[in-house]
Structures are given as C-alpha cells and as structure tokens.
C-alpha cells in the first residue's frame, strides 16, 4: 500500500490508542480521584485556588457555572485588548513589530478567547513575542474553559445530579494543569528535539548558497505550537501555521501535531463513558463521529491525491497529487488528513493552504466546520453534539410512541426551544454574514476588490469559508481573503463571539435543567440511546440539518467550481 495512506491510517490508530487511556485519566481528574500527577501538581493547584480566592469544593448550579465562565472571559478580554494595542512599546519585541489597531485587536482577542484563533495578522510581523505569549495563555484558558463546560455537562448527565454540578474553577484549573499542561510539555519537547525554535532572539540574516540575502524569523514557537494543537486553538506562531518548516519540521512532527489536534476531543468522549459508566454510549457517539469524519476524509484524500483537473489539463504529471499550497515533506494525503481533522475539530491550524485545495476538499473542510461536532473542539465539540442528540432523541422518541427521554430525563418544550435556537444559530451566523458580504461585493466590486484573491465561485467560497470558520470557532481560512480590514475584523469578531458563547450556554442550560428533572428509570419501552439504530438517527439528523441548511450556498461555491472544472 501507498506509504502516504499508511501514514494517515497510522496517525488515526495512534490517536485512538492514546485517546482511550487519556479519556479514562481525564474522567478521574474531573471526578476528583487520585492520579499519579497529584503529588507534583497538587500544590500548584492549591496555590492557584488560594491566590484566586476560589473554593474548589463548593458545588455550583448551572447558572453559577455560567456566571463564572463569563466572568473569567470578560476579565481576559480587557486584559488582552490592552496588551495587543500597546505591545509595540512593551518589552520582548526584538523585531520591533507594531501594536495592533483597535479593530484588529478586537478581532484577535475574541479570536483567541473564543478558542477560534482566526488570525488576521501574520505571526512574524504582526505581533511581538510578548503578544505571542499572551495569546498562548489564551490557548490554555479557552481550551480549559471549553473542557470545564463539557465536564459540567457530563456531571449533569449523571443519573441523580440535581443541582450539584461541581465547581467551575476546579474543573477549569484542573483541565489546564492536569491535562493541557503535561501534554503540552511532552509535545513541546518532541518538537524541540526535531528543530522547532524556542528562543527570544529576533530575526537572523544570512547569505544563501545562491547569493541572496535572506532573513529568518524565529521566536518562542515550540511552546505555542504544542498548546495550539492540543487545545484545538490552531493559532500558529508563524503566518503559514504548521506548513512552516520551523513550526512543523518533518513527517514525524506532523504526526505528533496532527495526533494532538484530535486527541483530546476524542478522549473526552471516552471520559464521558467513564464518568457516566456508559461505555456503550461513548462508543456509539464515537462511532457516529467517526463515520462522519471518514465520510469527509476519504473523498478529500482521494481528491487531493488525484490532483487538480485543471493542472492535469496543462499536461504535467501529478504523481504526488495536487501540490499547490502543500509541502513535499507531508504530501497530499497527510495534508488532506490534516485539513479535515483541523476543520472537524475547530482547531484551525493548517499544514497546507486550504484556499488551494481542490474544490470538493474545500467543501468537505467547510462541512466539517458546519457540523462542528464530528469530534469538535475540546469540550465544545461534545456540547454541539449534545444539541444534535437532544433533537434526535426528540424525534425518535416520538417515532417509538413515547415522550422522548435522554438518560432518564424527559425532553420537553423548554429544552427543545434551546436546542433549536442553538442549531439555528450556526446556520444563521454563517449564511447571514456571508450574504452581507456577498451583497456588498456584488453591488460594488471595485470598492471591495481587495477582498477576494480568486474570482467567481471560489471567491464566494472564500467568504463562506471565513464566516463558517468564525462561527465554528475554527480559525482556519481560505487565506486568500483580504481580511485584515475593519469590515472583516469586526464582523468576524461578532460571529466568533456569538458562535462561541451561545453554543456553550445552550447545552449547559439544557443539561442543567435536565439534571434537576426527575429521573425516569429505563423500561422495555425506553428508547436505548447507545444502539446502532439511534446512532444512525443522530447521524441522519446531523446530515440532514447541515445539508438542508447549507446546500444552496455550497452549490454556488465549491460544487459549482467542481462541476465547472470537470
């Protein structure tokens, strides 16, 4: 078999192999059981709690959890705005990079606290080392918050949870210190060994073999690359992210980084199975997600390895496949694999330019973000999936003639209202804002000529992709889009903000409300949710909701491009 194919199969199996024990470990962390890291990190946690004045043993209701979550985020928002707008004159800026404008700082701040990591700046020239470190801090925090919210929902899904859903600060700090920090250290060290820089020295200069004078950007990259992958942040140190040879030096680091992208999202499913003692349910969810993932992955890999039909027409051989925007050391298969993993998980880091993917691969990337829960971002991916489960439970409950219930709790009008709004929101944000930008562009193409790097259907795809990525808190882009202007900074900022917090608030509220309901024991008439049939139902709900919402838009973008090139 082709070594490229073996490469990606290995990556997936390796991920699974690591995810199961990690999931179990995280389950122990969230349930407050002893783990082997306690002796080392216990004192650190205590220090945090003491300095922060939080009482980790105090149980909170879901409303209190929400309040804690939003408070943390607001504080960090202000802090980040201040740093990014003044960093030009702050220390740790050897290259003399400038401060950000208000709209760019707004976009960047929201982008990082919302776990999106959409970057309308370029790492080498747009931000100082201090700025990079602050952004890296958010990569921990935003991931930790997503995981904490997810842990609250897990807790609420337990049989007799009632109002006692644990302590948010406890989940949050533990997510950071017990999961993200140790894993980041391991990944960072592996990257260091393979040549990723970690230095506070500025740019270097040399004269190349051919005689050109070349300067090289460096910086404290290894630390940031590790957490950007693990926390499904995706914000790279350098402009081209993990396509950059210093950020992702070889095939081995590519495996490490790519495994890191989907490791925690997958592990969290098993964490749920472990915490709820419902392993079959965990496998059902994993199965549905994996089927969805493969349905996006397989055709993408096929398309990229087959090459671009337009290039084929020019007569050259595409023995590797479509190579525009890709690196030889990864090849098309690993690039497509990365492209799909990074979009299904809301990571958004890239090792190839998505704008230059073949038309259908670009569409599958968008679909991954439109679904946003085939694994999904750390914590939030499961929350999105939870909303789909609620809808699927509702419809299938009716289909078997019983008031729908999930894990022994009845689903009623209030929960359906929240679930429906959340399911609507994603569609609304993406389509409404793409419509706005299309409208502006269509009626005044000259003024907005700088927006689109590509004409026609592909240009439309660039806009659609940008808002899809923002709403899904992904952060990758069809980077040809000229997005470092106030219009895109502000609109994307708004989309990211809404696309982040409402989908956390919604599932948290549903789970909180359900937790307080009376537990209905299972009977032979209860619809089991851990079966193949129910899995198929969830999949059908996801597929139909997404397909129905986005089909016309995709038809005008990548689908039209695909058929026109055929």
């Amino acid at each position, binding site marked *: 078999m082709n070594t490229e194919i073996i490469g990606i199969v290995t990556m997936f199996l390796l991920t699974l192999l690591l995810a199961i024990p990690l999931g179990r470990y995280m389950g122990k962390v969230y349930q407050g059981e002893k783990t082997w890291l306690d002796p080392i990190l216990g004192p650190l946690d205590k220090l945090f709690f003491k*300095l922060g004045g939080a009482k980790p043993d105090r149980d909170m209701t879901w409303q209190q959890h929400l309040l804690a979550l939003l408070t943390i985020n607001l504080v960090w928002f202000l802090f980040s705005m201040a740093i990014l707008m003044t960093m030009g004159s702050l220390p740790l800026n050897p290259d003399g990079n400038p401060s950000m404008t208000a709209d760019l700082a707004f976009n960047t701040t929201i982008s990082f606290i919302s776990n999106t990591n959409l970057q309308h700046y370029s790492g080498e020239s747009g931000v100082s080392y201090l700025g990079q470190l602050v952004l890296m801090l958010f990569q921990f925090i935003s991931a930790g918050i997503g995981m904490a919210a997810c842990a609250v929902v897990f807790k609420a899904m337990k049989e007799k949870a009632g109002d006692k859903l644990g302590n948010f600060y406890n989940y949050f700090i533990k997510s950071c210190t017990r999961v993200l920090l140790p894993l980041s250290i391991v990944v960072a060290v592996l990257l260091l060994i393979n040549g990723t820089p970690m230095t506070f020295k500025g740019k270097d200069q040399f004269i190349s073999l051919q005689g050109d004078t070349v300067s090289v950007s460096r910086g404290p990259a290894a630390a940031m690359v590790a957490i950007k992958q693990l926390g499904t942040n995706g914000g790279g140190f350098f402009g081209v992210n993990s396509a950059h040879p*210093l950020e992702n030096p070889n095939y081995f680091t590519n495996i490490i980084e790519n495994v890191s992208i989907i490791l925690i999202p997958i592990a969290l499913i098993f964490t749920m199975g472990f915490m709820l003692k419902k392993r079959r349910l965990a496998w059902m969810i994993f199965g549905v997600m994996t089927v969805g993932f493969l349905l996006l992955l397989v055709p993408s890999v096929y398309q990229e390895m087959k090459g671009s039909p337009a290039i084929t027409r020019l007569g050259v051989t595409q023995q590797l496949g479509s190579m525009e925007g890709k*690196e030889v050391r990864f090849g098309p298969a690993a690039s497509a694999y990365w492209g799909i993993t990074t979009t299904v998980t809301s990571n958004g880091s890239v090792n190839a330019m998505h704008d230059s993917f073949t038309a259908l691969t670009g569409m599958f990337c968008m679909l991954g973000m439109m679904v946003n829960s085939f694994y999904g971002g750390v914590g939030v991916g499961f929350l999105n999936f939870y909303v789909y489960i609620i809808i699927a439970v509702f419809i299938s409950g009716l289909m078997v003639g019983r008031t729908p219930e999930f894990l022994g709790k009845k689903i009623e009008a209030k929960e359906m209202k929240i679930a429906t709004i959340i399911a609507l929101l994603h569609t609304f944000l993406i389509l409404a804002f793409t419509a706005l930008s299309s409208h502006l562009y269509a009626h005044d193409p000259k003024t907005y000529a700088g927006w689109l790097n590509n004409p026609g259907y592909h240009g439309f795809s660039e806009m659609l992709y940008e808002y899809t990525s923002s709403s899904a808190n992904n952060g990758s882009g069809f980077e040809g889009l000229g997005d470092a202007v106030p219009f895109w900074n502000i609109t994307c900022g708004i989309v990211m903000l809404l696309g982040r917090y409402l989908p956390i608030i919604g599932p948290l509220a549903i789970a909180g409300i359900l937790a307080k309901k009376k537990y209905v024991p299972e009977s032979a008439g209860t619809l089991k949710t851990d079966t193949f049939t129910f899995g198929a139902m969830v999949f059908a709900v996801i597929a139909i909701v997404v397909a129905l919402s986005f089909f016309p838009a995709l038809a005008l973008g990548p689908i039209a491009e695909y058929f026109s090139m055929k």
Partner: protein
Amino acid sequence: MVTIIFFCGIYTVLILGIAQAAPAKGNGVTVSVNGKVVGYALEGQSFTQDKYFYSRPSAAGYNGAGSAGSNKGPSNPDYLQQVKDRIDSFMVHNPGVKREQIPSELVTASGSGLDPDISPEAAKIQVKRIAVVRSITEDKIVALVDANTEKPLLGLLGTAKVNVLRLNIALDELKQHTAFSK
C-alpha cells in the same frame, strides 16, 4: 484568577529551559559551508540558477521572515496561466524534457513558501540540465540524488523527498572534489 499569568510564565520558562538541551539551543539549526552560515536546515531557499537543482516556486520568495502560500484557488484562470508560464519556462531551461514528465510540485507554489524539499522525481528530471551546465556525468548526479533522498519515515509513513539545500551543497562539494582530483 489573574494569577494564571504565572501559567504562561512558568510554562514558557520551563520549555525555554528544556530548549537549552535541544539542538542549537532552540535557536534554529543552521547549515554552514566553510564556516559560513548558508541557511537554516529546515527552511528552503530559492534556487533559480540552472547550475542548481531548482526548489519549488514560492509565493513568499523564500523570505524566511514572511511565510506565505499563494492561496490561489484551483479554478483561478490567472493562476492557471501562471502555472502554464512556469511549465513553459521549465521546458525552455530543460530541453528534452517532455511536458508530461514534469512533476507538478515544480510548477506549483508550496504552502509555506519555504518548502525545503522536492520529490526524488522532481530532482531526477533536472539531472540532465545540471549535467550539461556543470559538465558532470549524469550517473554521478543521479547517485548524488539517491544519496540525498530521504525515505519515508521508518520506510513506511509519508513521502520520499530530497532536501534541495543539502543536495545543492553536495553538488557544489562534488564539483570541488572533482576539481581537486584533477
């Protein structure tokens, strides 16, 4: 809660500390010829002269301080024209090479604009030109390409590739070597 600032501090310092034990102390591994730094091992550089193996086209002009891909969509007519021009230019510089033999990565821009590698096929297609320019037998150059070809990881995973910088340094050394032995 503001104490989490320590977080990025402690973690950064920790990784920075470990970096001191890593290759080149985390400053990036350089490649030197005759004691002079001619490049970073991991980053590609521009080779457009006929005496060297070409590296891939770059949307960033191999500027190590500003990486970039072309971000051209697959159906963009300007882009396709550009690729066509590159093919034509390649054929002018490499007489005798048939159009259908040209690997596409030699006429398409990489993702980072700093791609250090080309495929072995892309190297071999250039052997004839270099042999003529440098007046070395093709066999020797082919042997050189083979020697500088990196197999897939563990022989199983990923792509085979040739680091253009190292291949060209070796090419220069080959010439000095032959000059010396004469």
